[in-house]
């Protein structure tokens, strides 16, 4: 995988802007509006003293002063309100983006190739990607500094034009001094960059421990095994590490600020002296009034401030962007659709593995080593083997979640890669070993096309499969019946379901889907013996006409299958009926006997 190759700051920024544009176009207008409102407040305040001083010098009458003051106040009031209004809009859009971006991220996760999801590196990248957004607040930080950056930029342009019209040379001097001040901060920027880079992983680890400490999954361990102590020590360890790094930043920042103060002092010295001299005489240029004196002194100060504002916000934004790099690295993983075929599959006659070899990406172990087998319509196949023998891998290959490294999988003789993915997947129905139900209603979990296709009433069919898996009574007892939500995190009136009930719903779901090939990977692991045998018997009935692949550690389940595919060391050790296999000396018989022994005397 190419995940190691980092993306550049520039690309990150480009992707960020594109993403925001896609999620909320209005944001950009509000951003500009809010920045203009902020800048105009600053600039307007510069002019107030000048106007009043000029009034003084021109000898305004009392009523003229009153009118001028009231007019200025009114204008200021309007500007203040504009800022308040735009500030609120900006805050609303920022917070909405903060919610929308993680969903955009989820969309990406849902649309990339499945193989990525089993790659530990991608999982790691995912965590690094989303942490800065959800926990660290890098996005909000970036958006906030964007406004301040733009506002400072607008201020600079206006103020610079005031200064230039006063004296281009003086403007140049102020500019040069400000630039020197910033150049002297370069060391700070470097330290900041280094520390930030060092801090990102430390922050993330600290975040892991903090998140884990308050997450539900380990609470029993903390209490029973007293593991809260090791957690507390880890958290403190990283706290100290973070503290030391940050301390470095702030010491350097203090020094940098002091150097900047020196240069600001020099700038002010030049400003005050020069501007005062211009008021004094026309020796250095056209003589100016006291009103001009106040505005130019103010403008020079604003210029410096705004310039620093531009640079500092750039640094903050740059920092936030570097935090967001993993996020966009993840977002640039290509979508699945890009390699889907076009053919439409016909109902299953044969499914064949032809010299299929497979290793998981980035691993050396060959999980499937040149295996070939063929199953026919209506057959029930059981796949048997030790842990990690590659049973579930076969399922994943059939579902096109992974592609074979070599060899082909043929559906009625056609390589499955040539089929349109959606059309192909419609032919399959699975209960995965680690199946997941969705946090929606029971109905939607069983008829998974219900919400998407906005179908007509499907109650009858849903109730029928619930009946088949022995859940009708339990669901009927719920106030919301089949429209009960299955997860309380989203809908407070949801119900809790036990592991066994969930497994039955997963089975119901796989029956409901009118598929040609049914694959069941450990579908009864969470079921008690009665429920299990019930499922076995019903399955025989329900899948009578369908082709079925069955995987289970409970060897009894393989008896009702037509043939058993015995996987051993990545190869097919046998592919035969239960009766035949029990006659020979093989792993299947050993496994079966081991378990059966316990059920006999």
């Amino acid at each position, binding site marked *: 995988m190419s995940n190691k190759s980092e993306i550049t700051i520039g690309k990150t920024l480009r992707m960020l802007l594109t993403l925001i544009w896609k999620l909320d176009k209005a944001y950009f207008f509000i951003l500009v509006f809010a920045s203009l409102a902020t800048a105009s407040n600053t600039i307007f305040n510069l002019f107030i003293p000048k106007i009043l001083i000029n009034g003084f010098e021109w000898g305004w009458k009392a009523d003229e002063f009153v009118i001028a003051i009231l007019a200025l106040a009114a204008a200021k009031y309007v500007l203040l309100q504009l800022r308040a209004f735009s500030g609120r809009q900006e805050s609303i859009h920022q917070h909405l983006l903060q919610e929308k971006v993680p969903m955009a991220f989820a969309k990406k996760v849902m649309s990339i190739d499945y193989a990525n999801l089993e790659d530990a590196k991608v*999982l790691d990248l995912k965590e690094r990607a989303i942490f800065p957004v959800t926990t660290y607040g890098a996005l909000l930080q970036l958006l906030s500094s964007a406004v301040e950056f733009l506002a400072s930029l607008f201020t600079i342009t206006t103020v610079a034009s005031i200064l230039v019209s006063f004296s281009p040379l003086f403007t140049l001097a102020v500019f040069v001094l400000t630039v020197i001040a910033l150049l002297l901060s370069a060391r700070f920027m470097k330290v900041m960059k280094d520390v930030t880079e060092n801090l990102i992983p430390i922050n993330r680890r600290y975040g892991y421990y*903090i998140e884990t400490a308050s997450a539900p999954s380990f609470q029993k361990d903390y209490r029973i*095994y007293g593991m809260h102590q090791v957690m507390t020590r880890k958290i403190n360890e990283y706290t100290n590490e973070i503290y030391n790094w940050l301390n470095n930043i702030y010491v350097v920042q203090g020094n940098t600020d002091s150097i900047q103060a020196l240069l600001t002092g020099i700038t002010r010295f030049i400003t005050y002296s020069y501007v005062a001299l211009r008021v004094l005489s026309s020796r250095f240029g056209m003589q100016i009034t006291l009103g001009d004196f106040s505005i130019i002194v103010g403008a020079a100060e604003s210029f410096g401030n705004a310039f620093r504002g531009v640079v500092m916000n750039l640094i903050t934004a740059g920092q936030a962007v570097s935090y967001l790099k993993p996020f966009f690295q993840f977002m640039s993983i290509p979508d699945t659709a890009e390699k889907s075929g076009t053919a439409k599959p016909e109902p299953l006659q044969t499914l064949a593995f032809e010299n299929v070899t497979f290793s998981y990406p980035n691993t050396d172990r060959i999980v499937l080593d040149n295996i070939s087998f063929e199953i026919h319509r209506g057959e029930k196949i059981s796949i048997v083997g030790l842990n990690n023998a590659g049973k579930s891998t076969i399922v994943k290959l059939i579902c096109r979640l992974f592609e074979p490294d070599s060899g082909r999988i043929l559906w009625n003789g056609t390589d499955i890669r040539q089929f349109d993915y959606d059309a192909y997947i419609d032919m399959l129905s699975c209960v995965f070993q680690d199946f997941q139900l969705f946090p929606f209603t029971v109905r939607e979990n069983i008829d*998974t096309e219900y919400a998407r296709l906005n179908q007509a009433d499907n109650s009858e069919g849903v109730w029928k499969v619930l009946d088949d898996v022995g859940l009708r009574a339990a669901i009927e007892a719920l106030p919301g019946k089949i429209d009960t939500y299955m997860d309380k995190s989203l809908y407070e009136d949801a119900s809790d379901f036990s592991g066994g009930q969930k497994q039955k719903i997963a089975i119901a779901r796989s029956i409901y889907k009118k598929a040609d090939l049914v694959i069941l990977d450990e579908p009864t692991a969470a079921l008690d013996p009665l429920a299990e045998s019930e499922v076995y018997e019903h399955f025989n009935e329900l899948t009578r006409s369908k082709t079925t692949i069955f995987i289970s550690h409970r060897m009894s389940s393989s008896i009702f299958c037509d043939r058993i595919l015995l996987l051993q060391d990545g190869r097919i050790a046998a592919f035969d009926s239960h009766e035949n296999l029990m006659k020979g000396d093989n792993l299947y018989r050993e496994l*079966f006997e081991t378990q059966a022994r316990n059920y006999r005397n």
Partner: protein
Amino acid sequence: MQTQTSPKQNIGYRRNLAVELLDKDKRKQYLHAKKHGLPDILKYMYRPVLKDCKVVAASIVYALAAGVLPLLSVFIVEILVRLLMQNDASPERLITAAGIYAAAFFLCTAISAQLKNRFYSYFMRLRILFMNRIMEQYMTMDYGLFENPSFLDDASIWQRCLYNNANGLEGTYHRIFEMGGTLVSAVLLGGLLILVSPWIALSGILFVIVFYLVQKNIAVYKHERREELQRAARRSQWLSGEASDFRYGKDMRLFKMAGRFEQAFHPLIRAYEKLYKAFTRRELQLSFIESAALILIDIVSFLVLASKVHANAVSIAEFVMLLTAVTVFTQTIQLFAQGLAFIKSETMYVGDTIDIMEADLVSTGGENHVPGSGPVSIELRDVSFHYPGSDTIVLEHLNLYIPAGEKCALVGVNGAGKTTLVKLITGLYQPTEGQVLINGVDAATIPQEEIFSLFGVVFQEVQPLALTIAENVAASDTGIDRDRVIECLKQAGLWEKVSKLPKGIDSPMLKVIQDDGVVLSGGENQKLSIARALYREGTRMMIMDEPTAALDALAEEKIYREFDEILSGKTALFISHRLASTRFCDRIVLLDGGRIVQQGTHEELLKEDGLYQKMFTAQSKYYRSEEGEATA
């Protein structure tokens, strides 16, 4: 122990917070019993700070240096304009004045910048220490509290206070540090302007009062609505988190559910938007008053100055100086008012956070101890239980006695209450009615930690923490007995795998902390968890909840064979759906409908015409029909 039979005797029963804090109002009452005033909160916040002389001295010096700065700008304008107005104004004097000003400016700015930055991380550290204390609360509070989502919702208010350095606790520290300077400036400039006219200072004070009241009103408004907004945000975040959870990967694709997740997102984001708009509406509505109060300072002071001009009471130099003073005063007073409002608003959350930090969330109490050494006996006496906040009765007048050293198997259909029973025995929950007795002593009179220390539990779903393998086995990072770790890994059947790792038992687990971290399969994690239960020296009872569900028949058999050794000298409770696997146990207990319906040895139970026989037949019929020779 003779006292245990009569629960009436006063021997310090533990409370049952999980039940006590179910009610929303009671919870509020318990968590936020004391209404903190601003002074209380500040006192709490500054208790550690005031002990540190360096920080106090730095704050004072900062206040003086930063406080003088705005005044310098006023004076330099005044001096320059006065010099300019003189007939014999010379360039040298102007330049000298500007030079002195620039030097003073540099000095004050540098001093304040140094102090502010050098003490910045001091306050950041305080915040992190607060946060760590909260984490400890989470990891030790009653388990039942942790399983109550409403309680967690209430408790999560600390996040608002401690998650960043711009607001909440740390923000308040920084702001108060800066406010010292603002206060000095405001007083000095106010004093200067009072000399001219009291009206300007008065309008300034009026502004501060109006601004503070408005902001306080907004802050209280937000504080009240925050919970609702937070809940909306949490929902949207939860959904995004779920939708991007890799565990859905396969089913999401096979059943094409991606669209449904997106569809679910729209109403959530709309609800959040609506709440957020309401949340910020008051701010906008009241901003009209704030702006009015702000321009009132301008109007008053400009009118005062203009009237002086009109009366020829001020020179132009004074006018320019005063104008500058008014501008700087307005800025300062605005900062000051904002600071006050900020402190008021943020300390409300600090107060809430202190409440969570200081709350007693562990049902402490009980002076009794578990007598004897070696395996313990467990008795459940007339135990009934329903989860706090739920009406479903899980266990009903249940009686069960497990003698010390017995290997007891617990079986039953799905939802019979097996896992709940484990939570009661291990003290994670307290029974609604009845008693749990450990070696004859009522568990409710024994300190919680002591109960926890008795059990080695292998839970149904197991995951390691991002620690090393040894640390995961030892459940600690100190005083690890390495030989024992290896011994336990061998017993659990994981040594073969671990010994092949380059770093052996010191291999870090998961990829969170180290890129080369070890990721184990589900079955291997289960073995690791068995090793951890074995490692614990004080374990007097082992409890295993489906410990072999993820293992193949051979691996399972191997563990069973070793169970005798693994469990020697311990009481054991073993939960499994695979009935055959319970045969190595001394006794089998069948739980159904919240009660014990059958108990006895495997052979005894098979002879009874009951649920056990039914379950066993169901599970074994395929094996038997095959051989045709199996006997019941």
